């Protein structure tokens, strides 16, 4: 749960607060939970945490006009070996560095399996907008991976 909260909010303190809020809400509303198999409780609490995280992000979100005119992603895809060698903490650190909206879209699409339509509804943006934000998040992460590879290469 804590990792999930870190993925969405980046800041450790915020993630801690979010986790506690989500757990407390789950405790308060436990009578509304319907058991539907193994893992359903975790899925329910996870959903609460994601909703809370998105609300926080929406509240503090500033969507600025991107001046990145040449925003086409020409970076090569990281190879399997390159990615495997990256520690999880490093990945979390890079994800935390993403701007709020990019972080949210990357998490929702790549890690939690939501579609662009769902993401658009959740964040109040269009499908195309969601895809555009994801492309920018991917580009930023690939740059981080490239930089890391250069630093760690012997």
């Amino acid at each position, binding site marked *: 749960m*804590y*990792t999930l909260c*870190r*993925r969405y909010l980046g800041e*450790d303190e915020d993630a*801690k607060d979010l*986790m*506690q809020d989500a*757990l*407390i809400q789950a*405790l*308060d509303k436990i009578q509304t939970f319907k058991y539907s198999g193994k893992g359903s409780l975790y899925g329910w609490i996870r959903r609460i945490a994601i909703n809370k995280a998105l609300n926080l992000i*929406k*509240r*503090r*979100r*500033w*969507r*600025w*006009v991107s001046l990145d005119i040449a925003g086409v992603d020409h970076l090569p*895809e*990281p*190879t*399997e070996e*390159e*990615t*495997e060698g*990256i520690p*999880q*903490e490093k*990945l*979390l650190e890079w994800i935390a560095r993403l701007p709020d909206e990019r972080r949210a879209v990357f998490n929702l699409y*790549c*890690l939690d399996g939501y579609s662009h339509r769902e993401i658009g509804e959740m964040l109040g*943006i*269009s499908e*195309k*907008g969601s895809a555009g934000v994801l492309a920018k998040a*991917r580009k930023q*992460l*690939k740059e981080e*991976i490239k930089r890391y590879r250069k630093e760690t290469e012997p």
Partner: protein
Amino acid sequence: MSKWENIVKDKLEGYESPLPEGGLAEFRARRKGTAPAAKRYSPRWGWALAGVAAVAAGLAALLLPPRPAVPEDAVQVIKNQPVAEVIVADSADVSEPVPVLTPPVQPVSPPSTRRVAAVLPKAESEVEVTEPAETAVVPAEETADPQKEETVADEAPLDRKTVPDEARWADSPFVPQAPQTRKVRLNVAPVAGAVAGGGLLAAVLTPSARGGKPNSSPVASTLESHYINNTGPGNNGYVFYNSIDAGTVNPYTQEIDKGDELGLKDVLEKYTHYRPLKTGISARIHLKEKLSLTSGLTYSLYGSKFTYSFSGEKTQLAHYLGIPVRLDYTLASNRWLDVYIGGGVAGDFCVGSTLGGDAFAKDGPAFSVLGAGGLQWNMTKRLGLYLEPELSWTLPSEKHVLKTYRNEHPLVFTVATGLRINLSIL
């Protein structure tokens, strides 16, 4: 999804970050029932209500009719006597002897005026038909210094007697035009303040927006006189004195043509146009994520002050309803605020105007091209309060009959404020 993203997903899915110390303290305390979760106070609704109340108060103050400063039947008739009425500025020293006025006397626009009894040579038959409060005695609430009131009363030893209503016009060929004598001191400042109540920031900006400069040099004198010659044909020795409207105002020139009968012409000596105030209700339809179409209904107030050679100072208020159509592009936004720029066109239609409190000519439509930047505070998902610095250029037209700030400055800068309904077709 790319391969590297799948790998990232797999790596993070099973990963558990080390929980910081005391990370679950609140939750555990809550579970034990020792620390009830306190609900965080959200000022959202409080601010929303305050914003709506401010706009409502502004509109209410704007729509309330101004209280006339002079009773409507304030008409006086003086027989066989040149009439002089003196308006003494509050700042003027009334202890000094007030000169007997003969035409012409240069008028001025004192900051605030009160009407006192004129110093007149004693006449054989002098009748005042009505007793308007402002000409008989200075009202107590208008006289800050009791000594001044006493001095004025001493200097006006007029022998007055009241004539019954039925006998009022017995010997006079003139028909009383009581409604025309209504004098309304409609100050632009309270109206400006009321309109600016639509937004707190607008209220701050309003005083600085009232920056019109006089278009002629100010007159040095502190006295202002009205003089009507009573030697015209057929007046039978009586002069109908109307404290405000001595003639017909030409809306094109803002001059008062008194006609040949009196042989005098009231000339516009100076004028001041105030910057317009604008408020409105607007709707924004989001066409795309950052592109939106904004339209609605705006109310604009154009205030001007005219100083005539005989009638004195008059305030012109022109009211316009406008329909702007604009395309806005959102530069930045969060849940509470939107920052945007936009451009479009607007049509302003005059719904009425007053000069010195009386209904006046309607202006022709004004069409303008405008560009605006704006800040919108989203009180709710659908309702926002906006503040928009706006630059508009009015297209030249022959249909503008009123002299307003717009005529003098086709390029107008205003700060508009109001409520906006947010719609979406996304």
